[in-house]
């Protein structure tokens, strides 16, 4: 005879199993995309995230592979970094991948879309979004170890040339095509002309900027991004073809699970879902203690049935940021380790990392100017002048 608690545990287990199935379906490689397995097999030193399957599929990676192997110029871009809040572990996984790409020879471009933050109401003013960018986001990125000579960071509102590039590109896109990708004005409240310009032109300018002559001209480019951004990548690829540029390649990463559970992304818009890179130890431990897990409400039930690591944000944090293999997942799913022990291990790893990261921040703050891109984009106007003659 089962007790009430056992029934609750069983029904919780069923819910979590369903969630696991849903996530697995979400990450099934979509048509038009390729699995990353062959790249991992052939590359002499694939990234840790690729090896453990967090970066799991790609589009058009062939041009990047060739550039990597032949040591030709190429670039990687992290578009859409929104300074609505502080840097968290969800950002860190993409930045880790960017660091690996830089080691493979990429020039890294990190546009910070502070106008977007303001336009969608996630900052009270442009000034506020700008402050977050300079005081938190950029030092946080620098502290991760990027090389200044191969890293180009800009805050949109301080780099108006990006808007000229956006104008240059938007000529080659129709509103219908943009609406097709974003469903603009249909589902989203608070849309305004600025958001339309941002999504339909500025974000594409971020992606194609490295191919302007000021940065060496047409070259292979790569975007590490979530699978939900695939239609956007398609749009950028189409636009690149129209502009006789190289269609950007993409690698797709699984998203970081929020600590608040239910299979949602870690996001600054839900502060309890994220561990920030500036959190103090007490806050981290408190967040971990309260975090949702793939375990059971009953220890005995979990020892017998095991946990469900695939939906567990703690397992997710450990895998995405610290582990070399999924030993923890195996221990969890066999019931060998319970959530409290796992959270303790995670706490130690996270605090160690944050102590080191935070100790670098003061120095990083002083070096912001070394990383800021301010190259004027004149090539657009040169073409106009030639046209007049």
């Amino acid at each position: 005879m089962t007790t009430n608690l056992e029934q609750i545990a069983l029904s919780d287990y069923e819910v979590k199993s369903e969630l696991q199935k849903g996530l697995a379906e979400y990450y099934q490689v979509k048509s038009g995309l390729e699995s990353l397995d062959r790249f991992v097999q052939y590359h002499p030193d694939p990234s840790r995230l690729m090896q453990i399957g967090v970066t799991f599929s790609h589009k058009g990676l062939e041009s990047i592979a060739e550039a990597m192997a032949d040591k030709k110029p190429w670039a990687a871009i992290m578009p859409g970094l929104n300074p609505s809040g502080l840097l968290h572990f969800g950002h860190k996984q993409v930045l880790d991948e960017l660091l690996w790409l830089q080691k493979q020879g990429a020039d890294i471009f990190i546009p910070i879309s502070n106008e977007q933050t303001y336009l969608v109401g996630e900052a009270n003013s442009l000034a506020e979004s700008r402050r977050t960018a300079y005081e938190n986001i950029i030092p946080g990125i620098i502290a991760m170890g990027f090389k200044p000579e191969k890293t180009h960071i800009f805050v949109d509102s301080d780099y108006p040339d990006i808007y000229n590039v956006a104008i240059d590109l938007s000529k080659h896109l129709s509103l219908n095509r943009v609406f097709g990708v974003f469903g603009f004005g249909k589902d989203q409240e608070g849309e305004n002309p600025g958001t339309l310009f941002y999504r339909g032109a500025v974000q594409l300018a971020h992606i194609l900027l490295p191919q302007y002559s000021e940065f060496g001209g047409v070259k292979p480019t790569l975007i590490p991004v979530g699978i939900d951004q695939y239609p956007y990548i398609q749009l950028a690829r189409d636009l690149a073809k129209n502009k006789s540029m190289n269609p950007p390649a993409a690698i797709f990463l699984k998203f970081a699970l929020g600590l608040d559970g239910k299979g949602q992304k870690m996001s600054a818009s839900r502060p309890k879902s994220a561990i920030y890179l500036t959190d103090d130890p007490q806050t981290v431990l408190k967040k971990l203690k309260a975090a949702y897990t793939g375990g059971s409400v009953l220890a005995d039930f979990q020892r017998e049935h095991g946990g469900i690591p695939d939906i567990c944000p703690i397992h997710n944090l450990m895998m995405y940021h610290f582990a070399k293999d999924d030993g923890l997942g195996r221990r969890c799913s066999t019931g060998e380790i319970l959530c409290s022990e796992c959270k303790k291990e995670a706490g130690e790893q996270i605090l160690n990392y944050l102590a080191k990261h935070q100790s670098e921040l003061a120095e990083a703050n002083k070096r912001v100017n070394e990383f800021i891109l301010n190259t004027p984009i004149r090539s657009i106007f040169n073409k106009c002048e030639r046209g007049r003659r």
Partner: protein
Amino acid sequence: MNLEQLLLTRQLVKKVSTTDQILERANLVKPGPVKLFYGETYDEKGPPVDSMKYYFFVSNLAEALQKEGINVDPIILIADTAACRNAEKDKEKYTMVLGEERLRFVQDVNEIYNAGLHLLRMSDFIESSEFTERRRELMEICRGNSEFMEAIEKTVPDSQVIIERKNNFRYSFDEITTIIDLDVKIGPPRENLYDDVARKIAREKEQKELISLFLTPTFPLGLSWAYFFINNEIEGNGITAYKAGSKKLHRNRIIVGNSSPEFARDLIQNSFISINPSLPNPVLDLGIISEMAQRRLESDDSPITLADDFYVGKITASQLKEKVGSDVEKYILSKFYY
């Protein structure tokens, strides 16, 4: 090296007909010889070192069977007539001359390495009444059987099907007529299409069926990991071992009598190499060919262990590249300064 050791040589033999199958065949045909066969065409780029894998293997197989007291006939066929069929009309004579050159090369291999191979030209027998009669009979059998004709059509690349239909699949029927009475055919895995048709027909005729023995595919040298990642179609069957110009990659092949040791070393140094045994390893392939050459020159009959040594970590990738660069010069290239 006994038969079993030879057939189990890692990274050399891809699909093994079992020792028992081959020994059974020997019993069936005795006192007549077991016909071992490897056939190749060629192109104007010259003899690739990769062909030597097949010559040496046929020779080693023959010796291993002889040790068991089995009578063998190790045949290497230069398919000059087939090469002419593929050539442009005005290049037929030139193609026959190239065939003579390839034959001379195999004769040299035979002498230098004491390989004991029986060399044949396709043109020596293709017009004989015996061959044409056998071909006519096979064509008749196939035309009366739609399954056979489908299988024949599959032997032709898609781009050639219409032309071959007009030619009554002459190329394919010549190939099948050539191999149908053989015992053990050695070749690259892609030749299975021909071998399968030959077996089907033999079954229909209640005759002995051809035994296929495939060696590992050949891969180009001097190319990075990115080439193999991008060109995934090459993983399965590789490139044509005996044609240096296969997939227009002649600059990535070692051509015996033409490539200098420096060129070979450079190719080797710039080659993709991986400790994953499921991935192409052109350097290891070349190392095995060089080791087979060395064994033959030194009359050393011990098994080839290079792949085992590499995959268990006894030698590193850079050591392997060094060794292969030196061995290919010492045991192969230096013997062919024309």
